[in-house]
């Protein structure tokens, strides 16, 4: 039975310079696909030749302030061998688009819709790239780093509206070690200046 690192090596043999050397962290193997345009090709090979028949998760990371800004992470699993493999690829902000893997794993359909909804990364070739959590017409991508935690005011008549949430200094205003709950959990955080 093949291990994760053997399967990663098999992918490397097939794609050569397209993949970075596998990195290992706490027993988890990750490969970086250097050209995001070829991610669907790598994924199709991983499914067909390496037995990664399950896409556990597809997520995006916002490396705000650095270029390329987006990192898309694919968490693969093989039911037959029990191996995990993580594929990463990076996309620049001005492009914000990469090929869909929904034709490889149907599970990618909703994951890619969520990534589009929350981060604004588009997946080319996706059959139905609509928002999945927010409503059609919501103008922002709320998991981007430059989107405020409290949200922004919007209004789409007869569909939905939003208002910024009152954060009062943070989502959870606590200060440990106070002698009573009024000190430990104040209604608002006072300015530290």
């Amino acid at each position, binding site marked *: 039975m093949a291990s994760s690192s053997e399967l990663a090596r098999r992918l490397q043999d097939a794609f050569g310079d397209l993949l970075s050397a596998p990195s290992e962290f706490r027993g988890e193997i990750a490969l970086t696909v250097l050209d995001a345009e070829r991610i669907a090709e790598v994924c199709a090979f991983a499914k067909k030749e390496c037995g990664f028949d399950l896409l556990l998760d597809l997520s995006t990371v916002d490396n705000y302030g650095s270029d390329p800004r987006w990192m898309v992470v694919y968490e693969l699993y093989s039911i037959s061998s029990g191996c995990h493999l993580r594929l990463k690829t990076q996309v620049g902000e001005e492009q914000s688009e990469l090929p869909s893997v929904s034709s490889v794993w149907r599970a990618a359909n909703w994951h890619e819709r969520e990534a589009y909804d929350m981060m604004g990364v588009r997946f080319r070739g996706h059959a139905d790239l609509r928002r999945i*959590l*927010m*409503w059609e*017409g*919501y*103008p*922002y*991508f*709320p998991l981007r780093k430059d*989107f*405020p*935690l*409290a*949200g*922004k*005011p*919007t*209004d*789409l*008549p*007869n*569909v*939905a*509206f*939003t*208002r*910024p*949430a*009152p*954060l009062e200094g943070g*989502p*959870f205003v606590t200060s440990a070690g106070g002698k009573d709950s009024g000190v430990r959990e104040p209604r608002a955080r006072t300015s530290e200046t």
Partner: protein
Amino acid sequence: MASTTPLSGTAVSTEIGYNSKIEGEVVHTQLDSAINWFRKNSLWPMPMGLACCAIELMAAGASRFDISRFGAEVMRFSPRQSDVMIVAGTVTYKMALAVRRIYEQMAEPKWVIAMGACASTGGMYRSYAVLQGVDNILPVDIYVAGCPPRPEALLDALMKLQGKVSREPITRILKRDSGPAEYGRMGMRLPGVPDSGKPTVHV
């Protein structure tokens, strides 16, 4: 406790307060209290279950806690037949106008219980996605603390609502013409939602 002297050949009768021989089959009361008594003991809930509070709402309806002791066991999934909307859970902005529409579909008289921290204030969700309290869009009668509240807390809210219903000057309300559509029971102004306007579209 007063007991009458037993007459020969008749059963011993004990009378407490009300003498049907003298007063007949008549109960004297005020119309207000009679109508309110009917109403408060038959509050049909509209279970607006949106999150984990709905599980406690179900527990309140089940045998251990038995909401039917308070006449509120007839959960109606049609707003047309409901009296009290129990908003049980997190109201997201995506759901907010649907909750508002269901409230507007309920016939007068109608009441709202905001069950739990989320429905009352947004709870722990200080977030772009969650309405910060259902009282932003509905006139709430009773707030229930807890995350989620125990079924007893919901029953307590129901009893408090019964107390509120029994104090309503209902004949005056029934006689008065109903106001404009945006005015609810007792002329209460419904909280507004923002005016229409084009959202800024982020490309």
